[in-house]
């Protein structure tokens, strides 16, 4: 088991269509796109983390001037924007892209080229927002961009923010359409909706949340841009506009967004906990329904972000009650996760520790969330560090711990090598301690009256000690992340070989080699049960105990390493998606510098149109596909239970 073998060769430029930079640029393979999303997210996690460390350094004591207020405002705006839109969301897309088709027994997503467009547009948006640093400074109006502060027109910064978010929104919307279609129509034979892994269910809920919430923020962002650039009056009180309108639009998107961030992590731990408890997920249907209920209710609670805006006692009551209701499905999930471990054969591996940490920390965030639904209490807590503590317990203690559970869990599937478990455990404990040191004290700071988004505080306010502790904690977190990065590099260079099923896991992705071949499965699996792969390995005796079946041990070496030799039809690579994204990016820069920017808008539009036409007219037997036309194409398509898989 512990054989250390040579690392797989790194991709390099070359003529081979499956290797080299060009192959990554033109790839439409959901796994490669997943990896691209993941690597981008890691980079922005580091960027957002450095921003956080600078913020914490500034706040280590009262009246410090390490950062100017302007720099501080830019940093907290970008920390929020980066972590939400450039880290957690793309990580969800990374896991979804890589795993979702394999978990449902498909060979790719429904629209592979659209998938590539989604990634390149995401990257364009991310580069666009980040590049503002070199073009006049980061946006500084907060990640929530409250009008009319965000529409004060003097600087271009919030234009970067608004247009950047629009680009990211396009990317997410494309991804959502793709995931919904993939899950609904690409499932392997026998993979009914109630045999879908919970991770896939949660991705489905997230995709619907994106589909319904993104149009709302899109409208809002356009209104901000128009107020800023064309003197419209959506949010300008002087001309009859209403600043509160922005808050409704933003939070009608923003609250579902919170669930967009947390549900993928909930899906991840719902996969990890059963595997390392060697038990099925407790109350599968209830966990699925609870997830869907959270998504549904998430659209009815937005005004709890506005309890001090002056909505009046009746509206405050209504949103207090709807917000409390969300605690019920959330509780159901937590109880079912604990129920999954109960009576299990618990292996405390790194992914399991992160999943358990997720439940524990997310519970704290959930409980402080209930105190926010208590409107009178919220009027004291909102916009203080208590809220900062709350949502970091949800989004760091929850989403990030869930993400790391997923990374340790699926890294061997994606790379073929295990991460070092001992280092992983140290990473977990350091991160757990650092996290609680950082964000635990913030509850107290908030209750003691420290408002958020303030670059400094007086020495007479009594906030020094807990701020110092929080800063120390932040550096402990940073240390744990460095340890993780070391662990990842170590494993990439030559970690322990994973084999196809290192965890004795339950779902289909473990039934193929690690990493999976380009076509995922030699034969499209026929699914007969929930946790189908587990049931191929184990039967249950009359006492409900698992009995190992005498199946053939899995031999990945018997598999080919790409689809060409097996003559399995795979979608052709295409450079049109990146051309369309580049066109969009050019238009975006042009908009910033109107009217001179028309010199960029026009070529950008031409580039986009060229990409779209080229895409529409693309020859499916394009020479770039790197394989001969296949004789058994129709047969494979029939196997997949769907039509052409490159028919987007």
């Amino acid at each position: 088991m512990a054989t250390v073998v040579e690392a797989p060769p790194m991709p390099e430029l070359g003529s081979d269509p499956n290797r080299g930079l060009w192959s990554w640029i033109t790839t439409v393979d959901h796994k490669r796109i997943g990896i691209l999303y993941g690597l981008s997210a890691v980079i922005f996690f580091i960027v957002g983390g450095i921003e956080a460390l600078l913020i914490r350094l500034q706040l280590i004591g009262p009246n410090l001037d390490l950062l100017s207020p302007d720099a501080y405002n830019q940093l907290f705006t970008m920390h929020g924007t980066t972590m939400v839109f450039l880290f957690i969301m793309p990580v969800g897309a990374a896991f979804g892209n890589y795993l979702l088709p394999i978990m449902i027994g498909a060979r790719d997503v429904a629209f592979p080229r659209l998938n590539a467009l989604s990634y390149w547009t995401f990257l364009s948006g991310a580069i666009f927002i980040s590049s503002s640093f070199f073009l006049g400074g980061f946006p500084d109006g907060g990640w929530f961009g409250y009008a009319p502060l965000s529409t004060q027109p003097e600087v271009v910064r919030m234009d970067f923010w608004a247009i950047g978010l629009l680009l990211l929104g396009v990317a997410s919307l494309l991804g959502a359409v793709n995931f919904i279609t993939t899950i609904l129509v690409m499932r392997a034979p026998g993979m009914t909706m109630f045999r879908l892994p919970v991770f896939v269910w949660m991705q489905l809920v997230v995709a619907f949340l994106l589909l319904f919430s993104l149009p709302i923020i899109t409208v809002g962002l356009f209104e901000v841009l128009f107020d800023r650039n064309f003197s419209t009056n959506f949010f300008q009180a002087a001309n009859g506009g209403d600043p509160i309108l922005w808050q409704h639009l933003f939070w009608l998107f923003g609250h579902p967004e919170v669930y967009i961030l947390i549900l993928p992590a909930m899906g991840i731990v719902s996969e990890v906990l059963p595997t390392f408890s060697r038990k099925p997920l407790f109350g599968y249907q209830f966990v699925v329904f609870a997830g869907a209920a959270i998504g549904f209710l998430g659209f009815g609670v937005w005004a709890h972000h506005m309890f001090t805006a002056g909505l009046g006692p009746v509206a405050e009551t209504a949103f207090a009650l709807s917000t409390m209701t969300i605690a019920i499905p959330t509780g159901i999930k937590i109880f079912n996760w604990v129920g999954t471990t109960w009576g299990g054969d618990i292996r405390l591996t790194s992914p399991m520790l992160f999943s358990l940490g997720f439940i524990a920390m997310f519970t704290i965030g959930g409980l402080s969330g209930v105190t926010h639904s208590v409107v009178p209490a919220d009027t004291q807590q909102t916009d203080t560090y208590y809220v900062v503590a709350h949502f970091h317990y949800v989004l760091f203690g929850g989403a990030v711990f869930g993400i790391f559970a997923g990374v340790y869990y699926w890294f061997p599937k994606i790379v073929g090598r295990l991460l070092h478990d001992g280092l992983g455990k140290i990473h977990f404990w350091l991160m757990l301690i650092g996290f609680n040191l950082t964000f635990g004290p913030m509850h107290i700071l908030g209750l003691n009256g420290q408002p958020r988004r303030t670059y400094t505080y007086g020495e007479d306010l009594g906030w020094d000690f807990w701020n110092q502790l929080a800063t120390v904690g932040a550096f402990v977190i940073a240390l744990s992340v460095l340890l993780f990065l070391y662990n990842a590099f170590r494993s990439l260079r030559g970690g322990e070989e994973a084999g196809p099923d290192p965890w004795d896991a339950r779902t289909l992705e473990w039934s193929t080699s690690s990493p999976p071949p380009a076509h995922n499965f030699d034969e499209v699996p026929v699914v007969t049960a929930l946790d189908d792969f587990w049931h191929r390995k184990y039967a249950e005796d009359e006492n409900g105990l698992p009995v190992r079946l005498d199946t053939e041990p899995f031999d990945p070496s018997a598999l080919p390493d790409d689809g060409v030799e097996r003559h399995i039809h795979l979608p052709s690579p295409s450079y049109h998606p990146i051309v369309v994204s580049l066109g969009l990016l050019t238009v975006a820069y042009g908009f910033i510098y109107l009217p001179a920017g028309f010199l960029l808008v026009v070529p950008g539009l031409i580039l986009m149109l060229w990409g779209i036409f080229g895409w529409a007219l693309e020859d499916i037997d394009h020479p770039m596909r790197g394989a001969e036309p296949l004789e058994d194409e129709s047969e494979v398509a029939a196997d997949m239970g769907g039509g052409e898989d490159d028919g987007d």
Partner: protein
Amino acid sequence: MTAALKSPRTRRLLLVGAVVALALILSACGGDDLPQNTLSPRSERARNIDDLFKLTLIIAGIIFVAVQGAILVSVWKFRRKKGEGDKPVKQVHGNTRLEIAWTIAPAIILAGIAVPTVQTIFENAETGENAMHVTVVGHQWWWEYQYTDFTRPDGGPLLTANELHIPVDTEIALTLTADDGDVIHSFWIPNLSGKRDVVPGHVNTLTISADETGEFYGQCAEFCGLSHANMRLRAIVQTQSEFDAWLAGQLAEPNLPAAGEASLRAEGWDLFLVKGCAACHTVNGTDAAGGGPNPGPNLTHVASRGTFAGALYDFNTDNLSRWLADPSALKPMEPDLNRGMPNLGLADDEITALVAFLEGLT
């Protein structure tokens, strides 16, 4: 993790650590050295909020202990020990009764929180008929108060800045708004009440009171740009007679140098009128009429205030001199964008004269 717990020494250490942590947290939550603490209510409304929060906190605490306890017990009890192989464990798929139970139980608990929540929402929204009225206007980055129940002898409004004087045991009905060209702020004095947003084009209300005299800290709680952190305020709660005396002082004519007076402060008053101060700042009944696109605080009785610049600095000669020499060095502002005070490029002797004048505006 679990192996370490076995040693009695580490367990004792953990216990001591937990007790110390708890003591630290409790001491941090209650102390008198926390002038902006939400947990030290000094009014009926703030106490209503505090009681409700503590009730919620206790319920949340019980659930916290139950859930974390269940996780720890489950992991402790069912963990695979060193050297053990795969254990065949019963493949339980769920339990409908349990599911129903842990759906209904939280619903009941939440209902128990919801009832007092709704009661308090409506209770705190009520305002008595005898309340005193004050209009609060949020500016980037200072607070203006208009005592609308009182009029100056010359008919003008009673205006002051940053320090809100109120009589003890009296309901104050605040009307909160901001100028059309300004941004959203949030008015907050934690000891006395929760916060209420101050929105351009909107008129919000908030009723506060205080049941003891003293100085209570507050600050803007909605991000309002560059100097959001410096938009602080004080509530100065006085006995009725103290308040009446203060009121009389505010309603009085400004203490100006006599015409032709040859003094430092007379020089300062001349400079005030010619150096541009008067374009933004008002001194009641004089040519210093303020207004303009970037109004600053009314300075008629500025020397009666303990602080200035968004309640950021004590009102004294040294601070005033530094302020006049370079305002944005003390409180970052954007005067070029009509937000905050510009640097007027004053010479040292001009500053001395201006400070002498200002200190006379009692």
